[in-house]
């Protein structure tokens, strides 16, 4: 039975059917759908964060004196400038909002852009789906154009949602951003995403695998960030911002005297990278990188001695990246904690920490608050391990083990042990990193024991997430990963909301991140730790039993 084909004489003419046109645009539609789905989530997060900062400004800094003191403390601090970028007009709401989340959004946007591009372009090649597209009514070059157009659709949605929420927050009488200023701020906050979508698109053409494309893009991002950090922290080197795409974005100066000039290199670079990606895509073989690589490689038999250690071989670099990243982030939080605590004159962080169950102020409150973000990251890393476990089954690799002398329970227990070790080392790196950061900045008001407790504190929700993930995986493997990620994201959003406004504790309790208290601003909550770990152990056990009793499920 053939597909119905309608000849659209009026609009297409010359016998070009609607079905033909749809077939010719299938890559664009497929890529845009997935890019837009992701962009909706991140656009809401971007816009929500900006609106939250704008609406919370007056409460945090109610007097002119408190604003001046905050501007003085933040503005002159090199460590903060390295993390968040150069602060301008910090004694105004425009300057504060432009600076407070801008640096974070630039980096997160760049990471989102890079990962989205490599996932939807190179990732599709890795799985072989791109070949199916190319077997249709397109060719390598046109498919790349459509893929990049699909990514651009995702970017547009990211910008629209960010701009809409910024405009809504900005229109509040106490904020008073003009519509054009809000739209420009949203453009600036998402510009790095656009640039790194293009970087990811080109990296996807140059590298032979998604993993290597990510590595290539990460190197560009790291270099850009490093140049921007040097330019923001070393006196007299501010001109270096023009050498880094992230510096161009910073030079847009949204809300504080918008400068559209850097949009020119941003747009030119993006267009050039996209054009190069299309050209390279047209010249290389599908499934291969742009550079000829040696066909044969020396075998490396380390960590291939059995199923128990295989997880180390497969996940070691991902785990190491998380552990190092968490340690470095905690160290950065430690470095800036002292200054940030001093600048926090109105005590908004203390208030936020108080809503989450903390009682301490100063550096401890700042660390307790910031470690809530780290707890969310550790939980995401754990969800990533559950996702990787499910991937082994969905991709059919697990069959190769289970048809040999490998019991299901033993295999899953090995994966759980590895994830638990990642959580433990992540928590340890967090505690140690934070303490090193504090010590390096001379803010030794929180001791190493308290910091290790804070590290332990971020582990517990992640272990609960692990339990939940194993339970879901054992019971409903196809649902486990999306449900788990959604629960972690929900927990994070509720924790943010709960720290910003006074809410019903039932509502707050739906977050996995709010049960333990913001250590070191509070004591360890042993009852909560007890029930969370107990529940995790029971859930892991139930998941293991369910896994041994169900069919393996393909993707």
């Amino acid at each position: 039975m053939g597909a119905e084909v309608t000849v659209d004489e009026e609009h297409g003419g010359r016998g070009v059917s609607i079905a033909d046109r749809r077939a010719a645009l299938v890559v664009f539609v497929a890529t845009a759908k997935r890019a837009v789905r992701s962009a909706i989530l991140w656009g809401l997060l971007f816009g929500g964060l900006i609106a939250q900062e704008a609406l919370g400004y007056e409460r945090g800094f109610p007097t002119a004196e408190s604003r001046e003191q905050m501007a003085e403390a933040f503005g002159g601090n090199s460590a903060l400038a390295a993390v968040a970028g150069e602060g301008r007009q910090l004694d105004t709401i425009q300057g504060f909002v432009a600076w407070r989340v801008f640096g974070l959004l630039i980096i997160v946007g760049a990471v989102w852009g890079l990962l989205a591009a490599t996932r939807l372009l190179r990732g599709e090649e890795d799985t072989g789906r791109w070949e199916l597209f190319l077997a249709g009514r397109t060719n390598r070059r046109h498919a790349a154009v459509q893929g990049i157009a699909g990514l651009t659709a995702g970017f547009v949605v990211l910008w629209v949602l960010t701009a809409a929420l910024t405009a809504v927050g900005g229109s509040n009488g106490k904020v008073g951003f003009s519509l054009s200023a809000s739209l420009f701020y949203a453009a600036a906050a998402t510009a790095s995403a656009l640039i790194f979508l293009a970087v990811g698109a080109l990296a996807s053409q140059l590298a032979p695998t998604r993993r290597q494309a990510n590595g290539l893009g990460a190197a560009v991002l790291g270099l850009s960030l490093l140049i921007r950090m040097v330019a923001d922290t070393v006196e007299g080197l501010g001109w270096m911002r023009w050498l880094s795409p992230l510096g161009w974005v910073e030079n847009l100066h949204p809300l504080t005297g918008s400068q559209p000039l850097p949009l020119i290199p941003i747009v030119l670079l993006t267009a050039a990278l996209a054009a190069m990606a299309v050209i390279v895509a047209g010249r290389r073989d599908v499934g291969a990188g742009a550079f000829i690589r040696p066909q044969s490689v020396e075998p490396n038999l380390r960590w291939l001695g059995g199923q128990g250690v295989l997880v180390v071989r497969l996940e070691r670099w991902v785990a190491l990246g998380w552990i190092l990243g968490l340690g470095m982030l905690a160290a950065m939080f430690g470095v800036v904690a002292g200054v940030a605590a001093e600048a926090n004159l109105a005590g908004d962080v203390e208030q936020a920490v108080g809503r989450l169950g903390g009682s301490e102020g100063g550096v401890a409150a700042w660390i307790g608050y910031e470690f809530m973000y780290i707890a969310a990251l550790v939980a995401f890393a754990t969800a990533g391990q559950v996702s990787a476990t499910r991937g082994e089954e969905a991709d059919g690799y697990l069959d190769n083990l289970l048809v040999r002398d490998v019991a299901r329970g033993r295999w899953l227990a090995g994966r759980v042990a590895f994830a638990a070790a990642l959580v433990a080392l992540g928590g340890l790196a967090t505690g140690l990193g934070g303490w090193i950061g504090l010590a390096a900045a001379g803010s030794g008001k929180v001791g190493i024991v308290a910091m290790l407790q804070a590290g332990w504190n971020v582990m517990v929700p992640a272990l609960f997430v692990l339990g939940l993930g194993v339970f879901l995986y054992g019971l409903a493997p196809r649902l486990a990963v999306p449900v788990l990620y959604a629960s972690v994201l929900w927990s994070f959003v509720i924790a943010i909301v709960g720290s910003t406004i006074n809410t019903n504790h039932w509502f707050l309790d739906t977050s996995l991140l709010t049960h333990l208290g913001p250590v070191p601003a509070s004591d360890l909550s042993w009852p909560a730790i007890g029930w969370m770990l107990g529940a995790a152990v029971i859930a892991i056990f139930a998941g293991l039993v369910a896994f041994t009793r169900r069919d393996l499920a393909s993707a």
Partner: protein
Amino acid sequence: MVAAIRTERLAKSFGRTLALRPLDLEVAEGEVLGFLGPNGAGKTTTIRCLLGLARASAGRAEIFGVDAQAHPGEAHRRVAYVPGEANLWPRLTGEEALHLLSRVQGKLDSAYRDELIGRFQFDPSKRVRAYSKGNRQKVLLIAAFSSRADLLILDEPTTGLDPLMEQAFRETVAEARQRGQTVFLSSHILSEVEALSDRVAIIRAGELAEVGTLAQMRHLSALSVDATFDTTPPDLSKIPGVTAVEVQGNRVRCQVVGSVEPLLGVLAASGVHQLLSREPSLEELFLAHYGSEPAGGSGAPHGG
């Protein structure tokens, strides 16, 4: 002697779909059993239940007397499996994948592995992602055969192999058989099954339709007869056992089930000029089971 494979009322359903009706099957140690059936007949479901990858809805599956559903790990100690789709970790090289699989298997004849690498003309130094489908299949074939497992369960094992490599595969199965290994060979390639199998099992709509040696199957199935006469052919349709009579001028084609003696008597009396008869090939036997009805039909036992 304990059977290599024994299933007893083994059944599997997915929701309301009955994928495998109660299946009773026995494969003797040292035997090569060809397992035939069209797409969706339940071959892979049977194998996945045998290996414990899918949980049986009812019944029992044993491998060398061990309950494969209750104790899959123990059952797998004597099994090597080659799936139809070679899913291997893409970042490993062929050699790394072979090393891992042999370590997980716990048994390896390394000299034989090297011999198989040569026989299958396999380059183990490349990464799995760089291999063609056929080369990925070779990794699993080499891993399975070099384990010298007592039971080889092969599900469409030659998918993606070229004719030369398929010949190498047949040679390797023949060696395994000579060594006394048992082979459960699920395949669509009838000539392959015909050449390698001691017995053939045909599954249809989740139900075992036929099991036996090829000779038994042929005996139970129709004989093809093609006769040319000097004059107008006689009416053969009334002869007991004769079916599917086709007349083209002086030539008649028909099928005979059971004794051919009544037919030969009529032919001898009617001036037959030329007579050809032959046993049905496996393909004809297979088509006899499936050709006249769509797949997924009633599933009632057929023939025999």
